[in-house]
């Protein structure tokens, strides 16, 4: 959702700038074209990403699948998980959501966004218990 809003914001800014600033007025058709393209991205990309995002807690590992344009599959064995954390950005807090981040010794291994707060906390505690680590 953040990327969609960002794209929408940029497209509106381009349109407004091309209308208001006299030096940019000759480029209004280009600005309009860019704005239209960004608007399409803002409308299409978030639902596509939502449809592709999956996670599965399997017997011995966590499996993540995500990405609308770049398809990404991640496997994180439980015994490699160093710690898990829940995080809320300003947009997440606005809509009552949170994201879960999973870390291994190699760094951030995966994240699951768009979870309700109880779901995120339950998943965090579940993973921490399975992995044998303390949750953050």
């Amino acid at each position, binding site marked *: 959702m953040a990327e969609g809003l960002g794209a929408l914001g940029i497209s509106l800014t381009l349109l407004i700038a091309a209308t208001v600033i006299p030096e940019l007025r000759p480029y209004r058709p280009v600005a309009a074209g860019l704005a239209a393209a960004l608007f399409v991205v803002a409308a299409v990309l978030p639902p596509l990403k939502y449809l592709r995002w999956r996670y599965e807690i399997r017997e011995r590992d966590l499996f993540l699948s995500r990405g609308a344009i*770049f*398809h990404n*599959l*991640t496997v994180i064995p439980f015994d490699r998980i160093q710690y898990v954390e829940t995080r809320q950005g300003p947009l997440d807090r606005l809509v009552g959501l949170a994201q879960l981040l999973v870390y291994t010794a*190699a760094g951030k291994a995966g994240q699951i966004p768009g979870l309700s707060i109880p779901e995120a906390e339950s998943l965090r505690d579940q993973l921490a218990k399975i992995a044998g680590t303390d949750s953050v």
Partner: protein
Amino acid sequence: MSEAKNRLHPAAIPIGIAENGTRLGGFMAALLLGGRGEGFRWVLFGVGFLAITSVLNPVLRYLRTRYYFEGEALVIEGGGFFSRFRRVMPLDRIQSVDVVRKLRHRAFGVVELRIEVIGGGGHEAEANLTALKPNDAEALRSAVLRGGHGAEVHAAAGPIIQLGPRELLLAGATGGRVAVIAVMLSYLAQPIPGDRIFQRLFGEGQGVLTRVIVSLGAFIVISVLISLVVTVFVYWQFAVTVQGDRLLITRGLLETRQAYIPFGRIQAVRINENLLRRILKLASVSIVIAGYSGKGQEKTETSMLLPIASRGEARRLAAVALGTSEIQTADLQRAPSGSFMRRALYVLLPLTVPTGVAVWQLGPIGWAVLALSIPGWAWVFVAYRGLGSQLTPSTVTVRRGAFNRVTSIAKIANAQHVIHESGPGQRVFGLATVQVWVPKAKLSAVDMGTVDAERWFRHLSTTLLTLR
């Protein structure tokens, strides 16, 4: 129960002053030289304050620093002007103890001990004991490493690798970008009839071009000479010895170092071959170590396992570092031809609009703009040929690089998580990338065929669950 607390050697004071002088001397001189005029007395006050703290801080650090064993931990207490600390390091968390001897240490007959712990890896070592008598440093080092890993540090049988001045000069002459550029320029210049072209195109301007070329040549020669000198100084008497469960790397002329690296901390090995070294069938080997500190050039030098050797020697040492049987790098699986097609397309795509505009404005001759893609295609072809990968039951090997080829090898047991990724361009050509993440490094098998990528992903996902 704690033991008696030990102190640093008094030479820590002049050594600390000298280090502060090196760090701040230039800054203070610049202030004094540039700060004349209004407010110069404030500049003097500031410089004076810096000078006084540069002297007092080492004195305070010497007076406050103590080290001792407490149970199964090494405790270091210390502090300067503004803070004091007490650092407790469990012996089984200490992963390496390095002995460093710079010129200033030699002047006073002391050494510096740098201690790294598991999970560290910031810019500085976890603990620095800046001045110890060599015997005290050796006793502390042995006690720490023996207590940390529960194993006696075996006496070394002799170095497994030792480099003499000839090898170091070769490393200096073939290392770095300058030597590679020199080779490329010499190859490019061979077929060009330089004299005739200069006279035809530049006429009276020939003098300017000659001066430019001479300057460039002089720059390259000077850069190579500097590279030679620096390499010899940094890697003088370079030797690698196996001591029980760790490697001992010794090196250095003005600043000597002894680095003790436990085998269990080596996450991956990289065999580096720049263009010039590939022609001469030479390579260097570096290691990825979890939790090793240092930044920039110091980190590069610290992780260097072998500055120069034949390819066979490089592979042999890489296998020793990883604790595997012989490593093969010659018969890696190449990327499918779709990889070249995809990259060539990415070179061509940005030129479509300029070509269209050129054809519209200039007519059929506008198609010549496409010729701009030829150097890009040449680069893409060389990069494509550099791709390679191999999966064995216990190791994963990936290679990439156009002119500077890097072959990375890691044990699957060190992998933390695995990622299978495919972009839109890759999917069109039936390609995908598999990433194997180890601490401090990522090995990417780029542009594998879809079937191979899925096989890798399945095998790695399964093997990670069984190997530790």
